[in-house]
């Protein structure tokens, strides 16, 4: 495999290398990181003919300008940006071929917050502890552990033969600055007033400006604690809604710490986390309570959306077997 590169002319607001995350080291405090919207990351990879864990660029709110230093196939999924490749408009949710030296320019953001740029063969930065995901706070992984900057040359694989163009146009997650997220009760739900879970289910929370890849601070009605105890620090998972003693609940996202000591009233279900990943500060979240069965059914439905576009798609109906 020969290497090409994505030459960064303008980095955009926050563009980082992400794969599905750095698992296996949380016992020593190594955070997982990975895409905020894993669904769109995976879709971009499928369109580019990659496996799901191949590294993509996560592009946030203001997109980059890149010169592609390779003959290759690219695909963008997730947020709807207006994108040009030289003079050619590029559709989100569709792979496209580029020749060496072409310029990819992200323009206006129409809907959503984060887009994923996949390149055939994947972004080829050196893996760190088994992953290429960037964790910004601990400066680990991806491109020198940081967001991309002008002048960076991001290594990609360079293939001589272009891959077939694939389309999944229309397979975007609804966002429109608002998301309904289904939640299940968290391990400390009983630390709160009995109606607290219902309270969070009845109102809109606004994502505060103090939000980032680690978590979203949520502005809304206070969640009244009825238990004053101090929680002994415990492991954290993505989607947990933790509630500091005073202050705003925090929805933990991709760059969350591995452990924490705030009580968790609930967890956003896996199927809905990608919807959260398409939000930005100022957007609104409504929570809806759901059961474990509903959570699994929702995840299966979400996976079927991807399977419909999978390369080696099994005959319809068989994907359910591995779930039982």
């Amino acid at each position, binding site marked *: 495999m020969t290497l090409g590169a994505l030459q960064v002319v303008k980095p955009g607001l926050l563009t980082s290398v992400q794969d599905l995350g750095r*698992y*296996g*080291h*949380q*016992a*020593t*405090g*190594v*955070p*997982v990181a990975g895409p905020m919207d894993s669904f769109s990351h995976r879709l971009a990879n499928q369109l580019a003919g990659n496996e799901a864990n191949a590294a993509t660029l996560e592009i946030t709110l203001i997109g980059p300008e890149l010169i592609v230093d390779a003959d290759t196939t690219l695909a963008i999924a997730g947020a709807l940006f207006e994108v040009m490749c030289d003079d050619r408009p590029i559709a989100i949710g569709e792979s496209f071929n580029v020749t060496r030296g072409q310029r990819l320019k992200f323009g206006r953001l129409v809907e959503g917050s984060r887009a994923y740029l996949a390149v055939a063969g994947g972004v080829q930065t050196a893996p*760190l*502890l088994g992953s290429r995901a960037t964790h910004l*706070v*601990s*400066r*680990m992984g991806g491109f020198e552990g940081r967001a991309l900057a002008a002048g960076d040359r991001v290594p990609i694989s360079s293939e001589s033969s272009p891959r077939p163009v694939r389309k999944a146009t229309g397979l975007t997650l609804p966002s429109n600055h608002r998301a309904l997220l289904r939640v299940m009760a968290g*391990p400390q739900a009983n630390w709160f007033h009995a109606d607290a879970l219902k309270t969070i289910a009845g109102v809109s929370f606004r994502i505060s400006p103090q939000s980032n890849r680690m978590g979203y601070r949520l502005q809304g009605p206070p969640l009244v604690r009825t238990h004053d105890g101090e929680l*002994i*620090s*415990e*492991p*954290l*998972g*993505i989607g*947990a809604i933790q509630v500091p003693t005073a202050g705003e609940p925090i929805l933990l996202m991709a760059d969350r*710490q*591995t*452990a*924490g000591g705030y009580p968790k009233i609930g*967890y956003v279900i*896996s199927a809905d986390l990608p919807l959260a990943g398409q939000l930005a500060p100022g957007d609104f979240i409504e929570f809806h309570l759901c059961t474990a069965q509903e*959570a*699994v059914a929702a*995840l*299966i439905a979400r*996976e079927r959306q991807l399977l419909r576009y999978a390369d080696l798609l099994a005959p319809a109906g068989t994907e359910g077997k*591995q*779930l039982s």
Partner: protein
Amino acid sequence: MLLVELEPAIDPIVNERAIVLAARLRSQGARGVRDVAPGYCTIGVHFDPLQTDLAALERTIQSEYASLEALDTVEDRAVIEIAVTYGGELGPDLASVAAAAGCSIDDVIARHSERTYRVYMLGFVPGFAYMGRVDPSIEMPRHRVPRERVPAGSVGIAGLQTGVYPVESPGGWQLIGHTTAVMFDPARQQPSLLQAGDLVRFIPVGVSR
């Protein structure tokens, strides 16, 4: 994530059970399980909901835990020594800890360095070990407003816990000294200097006044 909760206590035996149970679950490598991380008295089992037989996983955890209830000693481990220069610019809270404890700076150093600490868990940032218990006479709450930048190698106290900052980061612990030990290096065979369950002693190698 599945949270396995043992007795809610900061206790070496409960912690040992969590660590051993986590190690067993990790080594079994059940389908769909991506990561297993022990806490003080809990275990986080990170799994792919579509690949994991959750009922079977819960049964495994139950039966493994049942076999651990008889575990009432902690494994005898070698003590890892960490050399510390106390006080000075890199231990800016040493004097205020002494003042709050009503003792001398030398007393704080002696009390902090004479104990053998257990690593209960790691978290916050890669390689950050939560160690206990600190001598209650030098117990100190966190700063109300955390510092924006705590240098790598800073040795701190928070409540009855002590720890070392592996990388420069924000932090609220009371900083009493500094070490040149590299707490985390991804290029090492074992990136984290400390693992849950390890025993640690701080060796005073100097005092900056």
